């Protein structure tokens, strides 16, 4: 029983990381059908922002708190720049966007290498987040994992509320559901796109801050994360968030269980096979947005 719960929590905490890195993608991929391969590098930017802030702010706890909004803005600004300079010109060609943003991600990686050096760097974690929480039954849960879970859930909640309740959220939903009709109704779709891209990229920055708690950060960290993140969005179905949330946790638990029963590498293959099998059943993902648009 203890083992079962332990694995379940491991799965949930893997899922929380997946959710955090995929949330921004769910927004940008969902709204604009844009495959942003540089999303992983925005995560990296968030992580390095934490690192840089720690050079001047000595308190690990304070620097983490400061890093969250700063990383959001840094990554978000990078996203808006990318959108304005390149992606906007390529809306009709989603596959080409993929290749172009991959080129951008290569350059950003090299930039990180030139600025921070190729070896991984380490950030300090606040004291509060280094310990464990002991649960009855001899179970322990690492504090940093709990923090990431809380951050992921908070981000989902904030995003959901923003999409549901604010005028901006209403406009975003309108553009996702039917871009032409939204444009006809007087919504400046290109401005909404830019804002969405800011939010989505900013969420990548948040994910980057959270990942500094789990291990060292380096120039290629984004490449390793991006595929998992895209798989979550593809399987979850684009156009809404709940699919990504469910799938992130499901894949996390599947990965943890597979790892427990076999090895890490076999577990990855199991997850891949499960995804292909799942897409046989629902090729458009878990939830599809039903619209009358003919696109």
């Amino acid at each position, binding site marked *: 029983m203890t083992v079962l719960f332990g694995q379940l929590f491991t799965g949930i905490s893997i899922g929380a990381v997946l959710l955090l890195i995929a949330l921004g993608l769910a927004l940008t991929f*969902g709204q604009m059908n844009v495959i942003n391969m540089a999303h992983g590098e925005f995560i990296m930017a968030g992580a390095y922002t934490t690192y840089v802030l720690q050079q001047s702010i000595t308190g690990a706890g304070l620097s983490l708190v400061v890093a969250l909004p700063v990383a959001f803005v840094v990554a978000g600004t990078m996203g808006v720049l990318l959108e304005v300079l390149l992606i906007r010109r390529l809306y009709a060609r989603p596959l*080409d966007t993929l290749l172009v943003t991959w080129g951008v991600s290569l350059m950003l990686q090299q930039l990180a290498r030139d600025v921070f050096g190729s070896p991984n760097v380490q950030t300090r974690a606040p004291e509060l987040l280094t310990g464990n929480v002991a649960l009855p039954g001899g179970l322990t849960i690492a504090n940093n994992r709990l923090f990431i879970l809380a951050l992921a859930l908070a981000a989902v909640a904030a995003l959901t509320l923003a999409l549901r309740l604010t005028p901006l959220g209403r406009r975003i939903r309108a553009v996702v559901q039917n871009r032409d009709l939204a444009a006809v109704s007087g919504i400046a779709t290109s401005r909404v796109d830019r804002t969405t891209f800011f939010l989505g990229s900013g969420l990548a920055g948040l994910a980057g801050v959270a990942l500094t708690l789990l291990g060292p950060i380096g120039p290629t960290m984004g490449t390793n994360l991006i595929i998992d993140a895209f798989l979550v969005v593809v399987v979850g179905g684009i156009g809404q968030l709940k699919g990504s949330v469910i799938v992130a946790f499901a894949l996390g638990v599947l990965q943890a269980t597979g790892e427990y029963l076999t090895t890490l*590498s076999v577990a*990855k293959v199991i997850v891949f096979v499960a995804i292909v099998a799942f897409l046989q059943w629902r090729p458009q993902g878990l939830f599809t947005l039903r619209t009358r648009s003919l696109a």
Partner: protein
Amino acid sequence: MTAVTPAPPSTAVHPAPVGAVPPGRPAGRSRLRTLAGFAFGAAVLFAVAPLVLSDFRLALLAKYLCVAMVAVGIGIAWGRGGMLTLGQGVFFGLGGYAMAMHLKLADAGPGGMPDFMQLYGQLDELPLWWRPFASPWFALPATVLLPMIVAFGLGSLVFRRRVRGAYFAILSQALAAAMVILLIGQQGTTGGTNGLTDIKGFFGYDLDDPVNQRMVYFVIAGTLLALLALTRQLIHSRYGELLVAVRDGEERVRFLGYDPASVKLVAYVVAAGMAGLAGALFVPAVGIISPALIGIVPSIEFVIGVAVGGRATLLGPVLGAVAVAWARTALSERFPGTWTYLQGLLFVVVVAFLPGGLASLWALARRRDVGARPVRRGWLSLGRRRAERTEVPAA
């Protein structure tokens, strides 16, 4: 070629969609030009290059030509079929590993085990799945058939359920990621991160001998020319027209009574077979196959050569792949960091602003020369941009 198309199959009484058929051209002249082109290519590869280049440079060219073979396959699947496959490294790797396993076993002699197994593993005997590769009659066909079988398996599942566009690209990339993780994880039987290294012999020939290295080069050059001839026949056949039609309007082709899934599947499997063959020949040319050569990054680097050269043309992918690989060696020897920037910039500039690749520059220049005469869609035809527009999944 198109003037003598046979009657369509009974399922389809309609002609192929308008726009898929290249404008008519005098068939005889075109064939003559193609033959002249092949003769020129053969002269360059077989006579000029070995005379001009040193042994070291010739070995590098052999490596580039292997990459070019993968590029030819990507040109079919992506340029002609609209399937952006970001996982060709998997097929390249399957071919390469199949060949390397055979060569390792041949080096080790009958009953012997490859050196790395004794190094890492507590293995007492050869793993079961290694054993068939001792026989060249199994290993050589396997270099091509294994990738084709994997591509057939994935493709028939995915295309039938109409997973396409970006979804397909991401799945193919995830396949590359899964394969690399599996190879690294099973270090005892696959060599892990190091891969299969130190391959000395090639069917009884010593690979350290420069004469034999030249022989390998000639085999590779000949194979590439043969693949190009095959590809030319393929893209100028009825099937080639159908493939372009599926790329430009999958739903329309379906309504005409064809099955787009099988059309795409054939292109994907052919591309996989070419990548497998390339991987198999890469091993004797370079002497190593490892996860670093087949993962996500190399897989996407295969694509950049194709994009630079011109995705929808016959020669574009080959020239682009060789040019990019050459530029990479030339620049990364001296300025490793600069090359990465340049590579990223190439992706951005070529794909965003020159989607037809360098081949389209050539076509543009020609149009200017000829003046009013329309550009003919020959084997350096412009890649058309309508393709992906139809691939936006209905969201």
